[in-house]
């Protein structure tokens, strides 16, 4: 790019300066070239102080929520206008959710004709059909009090509740309960989404988004800056653009550990955890991340905690050798450690011996919990700073 620039200057110079004597032309060109060189050097130097972090992970692993959390924690957060803009997103999420549940109930009832637990009661059937119709359109109507009431009625239908508890077979979003419980608030005419609402809102990320921020504590004084990149998670031509992120300081890989019994959105024959496993392996093998530290966020721990009591880990093929130890808190910890160890083994199996020195750390996260994310990020920051010191030979 540099050579191109200087080439154009030279050609420019020779173009417009035919009237001027030759040595003056040279001098002017030199000044301009020097100025541009200086600017480039300055920006390169500035860039070096910016630690680039890349968020990767399968769809719905929590990457974008982390992104939002960072905005809330380290930047000015969302302003009124932006908050308001999320209202329509949340309404859309509500419609999508109830549609998935209603359609899902019908599907489950069809697959199991003998039982009636998925059969919505007759009064609610009409509501269900209407909402399903709305949900299939491109534009959603504003969530009025009446519609909210109808949705609540349908949500409370035992069949729908039963469907929800079997949500892993469908594509029910994790925050379904949150949406349903807050319908009254959402349907206010003057509704402005809260920060928590925004964190729960679900929009598929397309393209790349980035934010720049300064971390807390000591790093702030030294002028360290982080730039966080978020890319969409669904299966698409990852291999085409991944190399653009060569040399990032750190890859933050998000894996939702609660989805060991769920199926992919793009391919309902594939278990989500297996997809995440394959993606992680693929990322580890990329040469562009040879020098980057790897931070693995084992996310959605809160959902994992609850799920592990009801659904054993062995339903996922990768975890088929899991042996439960008991119940309660101990079991949760034991299961978590098992999953963590599996990911560790995967990491070391897929890292060449000369890459074993790059930093690799696993964090337990629940990205909806702002305090936890703040604590987690402090730890990430500490690790990266120590890494710098170690590499500079100071530790």
């Amino acid at each position, binding site marked *: 790019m540099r050579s191109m620039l200087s080439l154009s200057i030279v050609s420019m110079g020779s173009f417009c300066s035919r009237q001027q004597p030759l040595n003056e032309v040279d001098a002017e060109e030199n000044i301009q070239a020097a100025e541009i060189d200086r600017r480039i050097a300055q920006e390169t130097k500035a860039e070096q102080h910016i630690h680039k972090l890349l968020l990767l992970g399968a769809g719905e692993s929590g990457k974008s929520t982390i992104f939002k959390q960072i905005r809330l924690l380290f930047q000015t957060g969302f302003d009124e206008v932006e908050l308001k803009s999320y209202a329509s997103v949340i309404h859309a999420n509500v419609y999508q959710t109830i549609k998935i549940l209603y359609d899902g109930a019908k599907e489950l009832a069809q697959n199991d004709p003998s039982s009636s637990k998925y059969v919505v009661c007759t009064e609610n059937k009409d509501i269900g059909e209407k909402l399903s119709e709305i949900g299939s359109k491109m534009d959603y109507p504003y969530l009025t009090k009446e519609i909210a009431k109808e949705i609540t009625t349908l949500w409370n239908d035992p069949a729908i509740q039963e469907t929800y508890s079997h949500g892993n077979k469908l594509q029910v979003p994790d925050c379904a309960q949150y949406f349903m419980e807050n319908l009254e608030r959402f349907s206010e005419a003057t509704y402005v989404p809260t920060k928590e609402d925004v964190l729960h809102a679900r929009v598929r990320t397309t393209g790349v988004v980035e934010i720049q921020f300064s971390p807390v504590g000591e790093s702030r004084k030294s002028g360290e800056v982080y730039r966080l990149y978020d890319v969409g998670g669904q299966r698409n031509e990852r291999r085409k653009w991944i190399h653009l992120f060569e040399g990032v300081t750190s890859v933050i890989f998000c894996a939702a550990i609660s989805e060991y019994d769920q199926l992919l959105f793009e391919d309902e024959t594939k278990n989500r955890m297996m997809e995440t496993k394959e993606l992680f392996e693929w990322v580890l093998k990329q040469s562009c991340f040879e020098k980057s530290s790897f931070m693995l966020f084992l996310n959605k721990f809160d959902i994992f905690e609850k799920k592990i009591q009801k659904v054993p880990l062995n339903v996922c093929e990768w975890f088929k050798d899991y042996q439960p130890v008991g119940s309660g808190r101990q079991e949760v910890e034991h299961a978590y450690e098992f999953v963590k160890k599996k990911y*560790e083994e995967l*990491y*070391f199996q897929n890292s060449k011996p000369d890459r074993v*020195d790059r*930093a690799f*750390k696993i964090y337990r996260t629940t990205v909806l919990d702002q305090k936890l994310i703040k604590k*987690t990020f402090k730890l990430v920051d*500490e690790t990266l700073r*120590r890494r710098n010191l170690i590499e500079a030979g100071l530790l």
Partner: protein
Amino acid sequence: MPQYRQQGQWRLEGRGQVIDLQTAVKDGILGGRSGGGLLAEKDGTLVTAAEKFDLKKMVDELDSAVGEDVPSVFICPISLEPMVDPVTLCTGQTYERAHILKWISLGHLNCPTTMQELWDDDVTPNHTLRQLILAWFSQRHLLSKKRSEDVQGRAAGLVQSLKKAKGQGRVQALKDLLKLILDQPSVEKTVADSGGVTHLSSLLGPFTSHAVGSEVIAILVNLRLGTDAKTNLMQPAKISLVGDMLNEGTIDTKINCTKFIEMLMGEKSFRSEFVSSPSLLVALLRLVKDERHPNGIAAGLSLLKSVSFHEHVRSLIVSIGAVPQLVERLPNLLPDCLEPALHILDNLSATAEGQMALKNCPQTIPIAVKLLMTSEACTRHGVSILWNIINLAPDVCASLAIEAGLGAKLLFVIQSGYDAELKQRAAYLLKLCSLNYTTTLFMSKCKLTRTIQ
């Protein structure tokens, strides 16, 4: 005769100085650099408080850590020990009662120091001197007790402030506590009693920063922990944290982490799955390879050895490539690190994966052969490793071993003063290696003469 006065001032003849008893002790005339007056009750009677203590006990208890010498006038010339019951002879010399009576009973009729003949073998108790000795020792005893209480008080205070501290304050409090424990090991009990150990344990968790974690571990390895405390520390999340610190910390932190884990491994309730973490083992391996820090190498090998005793972890150790890395390090190791390193490889060679890895590493056989006879333990492990490899693929490995000079070495072993079982194993190994050769060829390979055979 001067009038007797309790706190009087005595005129010393010829000196013109006025001295009273308190000043005498305080100003160090009788010794006592640290000074401080005699204990005086409100009514002015000297040393009454001191008399409550048993002098003998105090003399025995007062350790030389006091740092000052007992005044020479308090010492019995016979035993050279402080006197607890001083008695004076007619010559005016004072001795410990038991010793001087023994002297006289042995038939001596003179004073031991002046050699004057005794015209009177009565002994007079020297109350004054006894009071002075009592006072001196009591004072030191009380000071030392106070100092010790101060230290205990400080320790308890630090633990309390640690419980309340947050952020940077917490890190500082931890550093202060560590310094105190290192300076004054006696505070251990106070720290435990004031809930210090429990609190420290609670500070370790998934969200502990490295700064806090490294200080906590440094403190915990310097305390003697009870079974309850250790069981409490054996939670996966805490051990995970220690593994992370083993990866990222300074050399001191890393060594503390290895000691910490070894301490936990000594408990009955320890489960091998706590250490079957790839990142922990990789961190250990990195520590063992770090040539800049020999004590780190020793610490890492020690823990790796303890870990390699757990069968379930062995295949994991092999899977992270420990075998070739350890084998390559062997020639560079200091002598006292050789034994643990070989022991680890020996343990690993008991597994199929370990055997494969050892066989596949070209350096194993020559290095193992070279290390035979460096010590009995090294030889035992070396023979065992070679046995396991050669058994795996006798055709290939036996000849490699013989080429490397195994034959001669094994003969040395067999002829050595080592354990009989070891010599037997060496003999079997030699036999195994010789199977593919004719006798003459074998002997020439081993550079043997007929006589030795």
